[in-house]
C-alpha cells in the first residue's frame, strides 16, 4: 500500500479536469492505497457547505480518502462552513504529510 498526497488547487467551476482528478484519487483509494487530498487556493470551493460539488467531496470521503482544506485559502474566500468530513489545516500539516515516508505527492 502506497501513500499519496494529492494537492488540488483547481476547482470544478473553472476547470473540468478537477473532476477527473477526483476520479483519479478514488481509483488510487479503491486499490487500497492511503490517499489524502489537500485542497488549496480555489480548490477549496467544492468543500464549501452547500456547494453543488459537495458530492465530489463526499464521494472521496466514502472511499476513505482524507480531505483537508487549507485554512488560509478558506479565510481568503470567506468560507466558514464546510461539507461534512472535511478537516482544516495550515501548510505546516501539508509539510508533515509530504514528509511521511513513502509518500508520493502530486500537485494539480
Amino acid at each position, binding site marked *: 500500500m502506497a501513500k499519496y498526497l494529492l*494537492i488540488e*488547487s*483547481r476547482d470544478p467551476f473553472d*476547470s473540468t479536469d478537477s473532476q477527473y482528478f477526483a476520479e483519479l484519487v478514488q481509483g488510487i483509494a479503491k486499490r487500497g492505497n492511503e490517499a489524502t487530498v489537500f485542497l*488549496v*487556493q*480555489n480548490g477549496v470551493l467544492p468543500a464549501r457547505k452547500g456547494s453543488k460539488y459537495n458530492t465530489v467531496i463526499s464521494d472521496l470521503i466514502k472511499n476513505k480518502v482524507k480531505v483537508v482544506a*487549507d485554512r*488560509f*485559502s478558506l479565510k481568503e474566500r470567506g468560507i466558514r462552513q464546510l461539507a461534512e468530513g472535511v478537516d482544516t489545516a*495550515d*501548510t*505546516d500539516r*501539508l*509539510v508533515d504529510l*509530504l*514528509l511521511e*515516508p513513502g*509518500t508520493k*505527492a502530486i*500537485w494539480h
Partner: protein
Amino acid sequence: MASGKTVTVAIMDAPYESANSTTALRIVQSALEKGHNVNVFAYEGAVNLTMKAQAPHPNPVKGTNVEQEAHPTTKDWVASLFKLAKDKGAKLDWVNCGLCVDERGAGDWVEGPRRGGPKDFLDASNASNATLVIPTK
C-alpha cells in the same frame, strides 16, 4: 533547531500571476519553521520572484499611497525566507534556472539565490526526503 530533513520544491509561475506563488512560498516557510532544509528550483517565470528591482506600488483605486498599501513583493518574501532559514539553523538552497534568467534578463536578485539548471533539481530531489513540483496551470 534543524530537523535534518530536506524538502525540494519546484516552482514555475511568475510572480503576481497565480496563487501558486503564494502557496509555494507558504510551504517553504512552513518547512523552514519546522527546521527542515529546503531546496527551491525556480524555473521559467518563477526566476522573477527574486528580482531585486521589484517595488511596491500605491493603489489608485483605493487612493492609498505606497506606505498605506504595504504591498508585499515576492523578492522581500524570498529575502525573509533566507533570514528564517538562518534563524532556524536550516539551509535554504534557492536555484534560479540560468537559461530562464538569461531569457528574461532577470539576473539581479536579492541576496541568497544561486544560478543553476535542471540537473540541480534532479540532484536535490534525489537527496531529499520529499519533492513537490508545482506546475503552471
